């Protein structure tokens, strides 16, 4: 029954023969006698049956199998079941913290982002807009718009936005890009691509796109999405650590999918608000449904099935078309055929 002791003061190993008493474990090394109370025993390594002592943390006692088995009866906190219980308690606490943090990330942040954006002073959004514009300038080619085309485009934007509750005047710009797209920036700036003008079949469709983007500006959606992304970023970076582990990546994926879901809801709401704005401006809102129907065909031609919507920031174009069709109202054609033809050549 030889066991090994290291006193934690020198690297010398000493053979010892410990005795298990009623309240303690005792052993002798040369002239020193050690008495270790059961309560203060610490398990360092179950595989090697290595113990330490609360009052002498550097000391190590390696027991043989018989003594270790016997000792666990007197000091149950050294048993495997006690160790498991301790681990489970830790996991439960961490899981509870995880659930609380998840609730903040997945529900709290999206809920708080809207009111926070609306409380933000417009001057702040204006400053943000200037910064974003200067960054856009690096990666995009902006089109020169002749005064006549600018008047048509700006006139249409003003007519739609007259009934919107805006903090900023709407200013429309055009980007030299073939892909049909449009997006709102902070502080009322709306960018439309050259491709969208070429893709549109009439002025109603351009009005529908503008109305959708004006709805984003009205709701300050860009700022909302920045706050949402920041909230996700700060909390997830702080908690998950942005690491490359499988678990970390799964959580980040979950957060991204949640962000995309929120984004799709915002887009659907902007569709509905855009249709309202068109109706208030007495502009036919039938163009939105037709536009989305054609967009759906384009997406299908590119091999993007319905499944892709889960990875998209925008709702399924077919669904958008169906909803727009159900809410569409008749009205005026906002621009003449000649003006529309002029806009189609806006970047040429």
């Amino acid at each position, binding site marked *: 029954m030889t*066991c*090994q002791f*290291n*006193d*934690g*003061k*020198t*690297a*010398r*190993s000493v053979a010892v023969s410990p005795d298990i008493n009623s309240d303690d474990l005792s052993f002798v090394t040369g002239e020193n006698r050690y008495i270790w109370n059961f309560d203060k025993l610490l398990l*360092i*390594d179950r*595989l*090697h049956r*290595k113990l330490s002592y609360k009052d002498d943390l*550097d*000391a*190590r006692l390696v027991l043989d199998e018989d003594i270790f088995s016997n000792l666990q009866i007197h000091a149950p906190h050294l048993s495997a079941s006690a160790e498991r219980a301790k681990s489970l308690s*830790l*996991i439960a606490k*961490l*899981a509870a*913290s*995880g*659930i609380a*943090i*998840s609730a903040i990330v997945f529900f709290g942040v999206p809920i708080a982002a809207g009111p926070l954006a609306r409380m933000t002073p417009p001057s*702040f959004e204006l*400053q*943000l807009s200037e*910064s*974003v514009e*200067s*960054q856009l300038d690096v990666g995009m080619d902006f089109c020169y718009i002749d005064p006549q085309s600018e008047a048509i485009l700006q006139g249409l934007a003003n007519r739609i936005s007259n009934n919107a509750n805006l903090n900023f005047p709407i200013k429309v710009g055009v980007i030299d890009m*073939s*892909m*049909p797209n449009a997006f709102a920036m902070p502080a009322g700036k709306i960018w439309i691509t050259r*491709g969208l003008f*070429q893709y549109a079949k009439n002025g109603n469709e351009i009005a529908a796109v503008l109305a959708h983007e004006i709805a984003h500006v009205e709701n300050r959606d860009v700022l909302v999405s920045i706050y949402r992304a*920041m909230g996700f*970023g*700060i909390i997830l*970076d*702080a*908690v*998950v*650590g*942005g*690491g*490359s*582990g*499988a*678990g*970390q*990546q799964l*959580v980040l994926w979950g957060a991204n999918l949640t962000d995309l879901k929120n984004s799709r809801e915002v887009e659907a709401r902007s569709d509905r608000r855009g249709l309202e704005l068109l109706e208030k401006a007495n502009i036919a809102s039938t163009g939105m449904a037709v536009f989305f129907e054609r967009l759906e065909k*384009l997406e299908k*031609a*590119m*091999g993007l099935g319905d499944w892709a919507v889960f990875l998209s920031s925008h709702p399924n174009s077919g669904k958008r078309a169906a909803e727009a069709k159900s809410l569409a109202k008749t009205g005026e054609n906002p621009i003449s055929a000649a003006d529309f033809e002029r806009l189609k050549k806006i970047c040429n």
Partner: protein
Amino acid sequence: MSEETNETSALSQDKPSTDTSENLVFGHKISGGDFVGLGFINTLLGIVTLTLYRFWARTNVRKQIWRSIYMNNEPFEYTGTGGDLFKGFLIATAVITVPYLIIIFSAQMMPPLIGGIIIFAFVLFIYLIIGAAIWLAFRYLASRTVWRGIRFSLKGHPKDFSLMYFGQLMLNLITIGWWSPKMEITIAKWLWGEMYYGDLPFNFDEQRAKDAKLYPLFALGWAILIIGEITLVSLFAGDFMAFESSMKSGNPEDIMHGLNLIGLIYLSLFGFLALILVAFMPYRAAMMRAIASCISLDNATFRLEVTWLQLLGLWFVNTLILVFSFGILAPVAQARAARFIIEHLKADGQVDFAMAEQGEAGPNQAEGLSDAFDIGII
């Protein structure tokens, strides 16, 4: 106590020894399979706890690796805790992560020039403290590594190491990477030359690295890197132009073609990275051998008998494990790496361990700063 281990060290008696001096015999009981379950449990608990468990997961992997490594038939011991790592992480979050996010966001609100200067200054600061992160991680690992009840320790100060590291990085930048071999030896000297087992100091004699032919092997890797880069850039230029024209046309078929080109570019990049890795592998193996040969403890010197093909084999299999398990089996890869080192580590001469006395206690907090930069030692 006597444990049956896979002993690998060749012993030699070419140095004088006292009665209590010992040869160093390294062994292990590491089996990659033992770490499979740990990988799955860690991942599962990581998801359940929104990854907060990762500090304890890392600790469990280290504990299992350390206790499976033996010197003179006695196991090493890792005394770090998940709580230590968690505390370090919280400190790093408060000191680095949150200020970083705030600064990046605030810079967006400023005029581009001022924003750019602020971001540049912050990036410079980050580079300055990367050295501290490495040093703190190394010190923590040393202080939590125990053998025969005596812990290892790293002396020095993170500020000194940080400044040295930053200086080395700058020299490497100025010399387009050619300072790299010298830099790695210098860093190893600062880490291993300040390492202690109890009060017994390790020594690092960089003169021994001179026989390692580091520069010719580095030049080989560098030449392949440059040739590869030139080839890749000429390929990229053509692909990018083709991509731009297909995206401009707006035709769905052309757009798909453009996206395929992007896929091809990524594939080429992957191939390039693999080629660079292979090209530098002889240098990496030589560097590992050189660093090991510079280290000594008492009258013992160390050797790492590693060939570049063995190292490539380790990297290749570990990469397959990581990729095909989506990182879940990272502990297996870590265990294999540790086993690889132990199986190739030899020592000549003896150490009088009986003379070693306990050193100072280690730091209270862990390598949080290195976690913030994702610098993983193990």
